[in-house]
């Protein structure tokens, strides 16, 4: 089972993801502050990060770039309600495994996470 980090400026969104993925046996840590998430990633082994695109200080793409510097093997799923082709191409270029668009339901989220962790 995986350790998953969720960064979303809305706490409820992170908590919801935690509720869904915890049931699948994963350990999920939701964050609303990108700095907190990055320092968590520096100290702990994280298998997967789920990043929203609109965050408080940085963009999801910037957090992705930082996370890849901390741990090049980390898997990343971008999850946004405001998709653009530019951020999608940029994220995939920087090594994101998936670029997912909200709304996303329980089944789709579970499926995508399982798919990324299998890679």
């Amino acid at each position, binding site marked *: 089972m995986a350790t998953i980090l969720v960064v979303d400026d809305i706490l409820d969104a992170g908590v919801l993801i935690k509720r869904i993925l915890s049931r699948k046996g994963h350990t999920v840590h939701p964050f609303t502050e990108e700095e907190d998430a990055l320092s968590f990633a520096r100290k702990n082994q994280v298998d997967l990060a789920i990043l929203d695109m609109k965050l408080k200080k940085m963009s999801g793409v910037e957090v992705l770039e930082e996370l890849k510097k901390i741990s090049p093997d980390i898997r990343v799923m971008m999850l946004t309600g405001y*998709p653009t*082709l530019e951020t*999608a191409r940029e994220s995939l270029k920087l090594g994101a495994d998936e670029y997912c*668009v*909200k709304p996303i*339901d329980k089944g789709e989220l579970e499926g995508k996470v399982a798919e990324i962790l299998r890679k």
Partner: protein
Amino acid sequence: MLKHLFRHLTYQVFSPGTLLRNKYNAFREVLRHDNIALERIADLEEIYYEDQYADWARIAWLCRELSTSTRIMIDKLQEMSPTRYMGLQEYHKKIDFYIQLGTSVPEPDFSPPYLVPLGEHATDPNLTGGKASSLARVASRTDIPVLPGFVVTANAFNYFLESNGLRERLDSALRRIRPCKTNQLQELAREMEEEVLTAPVPNIIADELLESAEHLLQAVSCSGLILRSSAVAEDGVVSFAGQYDSVLNVGPENILETYKRILAGKYRAKALFYRILYGLTDSETPMAVLVQPMLDPLVSGVMYTKDPGVQDRDVLGIYAVPGHSDGLMDGTAAPCTTLVPRTGPGEPAGEDSDPDTRCLLDHAQRQTLIGLGLELERIGQAPQDVEWGVDVNGRILVLQTRPIRNTPKSVEPARDLQISAEILASGGQRAASGVASGPVHMLNSWNELADVPDQCILLVPALSPELAQVVHRLRGVVARSGSRASHFASVARELGLPVLVHPDSLNGVLSNRTITLDADRTLIYDGEVRELLQLFERGQPGMDNRSVHRLGRVMERISRLTLTDPASPRFNPESCRSMHDLVRFVHEKSVSEMFSLVGKGGRGLRRARQLKSDLPISMYILDIDDGLFETDRDQVTVTPEEFKSVPMWALWWGLSSPDVAWDKKLLHVDWEEFDRISAGIFKADSALLSSYAVLSANYMHLMLRFGYHFSVVDALCGSESKNNYINFRFKGGGASFDGRLLRIEFITRVLTHHGFTVTSKADLLDARCSRDEEKVIQKRLAILGRLLAKTRLLDMRLDSTDQIDDLVNDFLEG
């Protein structure tokens, strides 16, 4: 959204007839776009599953059209019912985004530099194209002699298109190309070439080009220039061998026209088809042009550092002709050949003991050439296909170098394989490896390319690059002249298409006779030699179409249908995973919106006219669009003779069938409602208790109230079979529950017999059929009408299952 809701509520309160008409109009739009969307899905599926070649411009356009039609369907469904289906737009946006991400190509770069000298700055293949960039690498990183020159960049080409607004015009032609139609391909190709040739070269490029050309001519003091195509992706994953132009002896006065001619060559039929065949997009293969001084070679030719024509051992092959090598490339000249065995990727083992006696190169030149080849192989990190020339001073110059593509390994037939088929011809030279069987087609003129039949073995006078545009129809080629150093041989090797060059083979063989061509062993057999074909099947690489791969990545977002069961709790917007799901969902929901078109109280029927007929039915008719023949509009009544609506007419035909006896004294209204609300106060033919029909020319929504049961028939019946459907619901009755169930069983059996899908729950029955021809729908509506007439009071008379068998038989015979 709010706009829809406000309008909806306003109409509902003030003008219910308008609401009904709007709902119907929105429904018609849903059906229209349902058709378009399903067509687009089918087009894309054809490209994907049946390997139909299509330009990426077509694929991207089909995706956009699909997305637009789906969005309109959602809009229209929300017009029909503004408060339901709120999340649909969001799911559409999401799926649309995934498809766009998979199908959009990055914007072309049209920023400077537009010209770069052939040196270190020209080594980026995305800027200067395959040919120029590999030559620039040789010029800047080795001592190998290369002619000087400069490159008009790919960005200059992009700027040329942009400044003339050509991208959109080219895309509109590209998306109409169906490569299977050779004539249409040629016509569109001419159209596009014309667009390019008539557009002016922007000054910023023209000035720089003319100035640099003058400088080059002065610097090397030669009479003219040579302009060569150097497209991005050329010589990369695929070779584009011979598909694009080179123009010799260009003077300064012709340079702009020649530049455009080479750009236009990108849209010549053979080059277009070749590009589409490999699934490369037009915008990712922009055309750079290499400009060099004209060389008048004494001897020129091709060198393969690992000759693909010799498969049993490693050999370096040199093919030489006097003067220019055009004849060698287009397959008309026979070169003299030198083969040098090699021991491995390093050094050659020495010169062939028996070099071609006509060889045009002396020993020292051959040694120099071999040395150059090995160095090019080293820096290119792969075996190379090198074009070279010898200038007046006897110096060998490299004109072009590109990696040799992997070629399929020929299959060695097992030694004990006995082939009994008659050998029609043997000998000649293999130009591309492989075994194939098919009927012979003789091509006498290049004008007859459009008539080349599918899956034939083509017999041609020479291995011309023109053949590339029909390559998808060929199983093999036998040419009277040409060599494996020709461009088409290179194309054929990429595709695994066997090609044999034989000066007099197949003389006298009749067209359409089936033969088996074994290019590896240079044999032609009569008939189909199964044993040999089976052996070869394992080695066949097949064409690898990159657009099909790319399309594959988004295909599940386009066509995979996961919403199949409208009764499932997963039949909701959240479960839509593809455009097809959305289309299915909206269609289903719009039909059910129409099914509940008018509330039970008859709301929305204020302008309806009362039906006067021989049947004792109280019914009101609302014509929303051409459902009645033109009569006096102020009349408050209407007769069945005025029905213009096809479904209504058909149903009435059955309902008024002469074999059903009606009790004229018993007016058929909603007796339950009559009992509940009136206790005799209302008149029995009041609109509140009556049946009604909403009609258009090919649509009918009918609510029949007979006694204690009601039925709804919603049907579309027109010339477009795809749109046609009947939805029928039947409920209730005045008899005991068992009596009602027996009647449901009777109806189920009759309707199932006539092709309806029937589901029932207690005394509620739903029957549907769809996508049938107009005549079939009419016939079924007539049956439904007769069935409704027959079953009016049937439940009162039923008390055992045995009666059902007789009744069903009676009805079906009647």
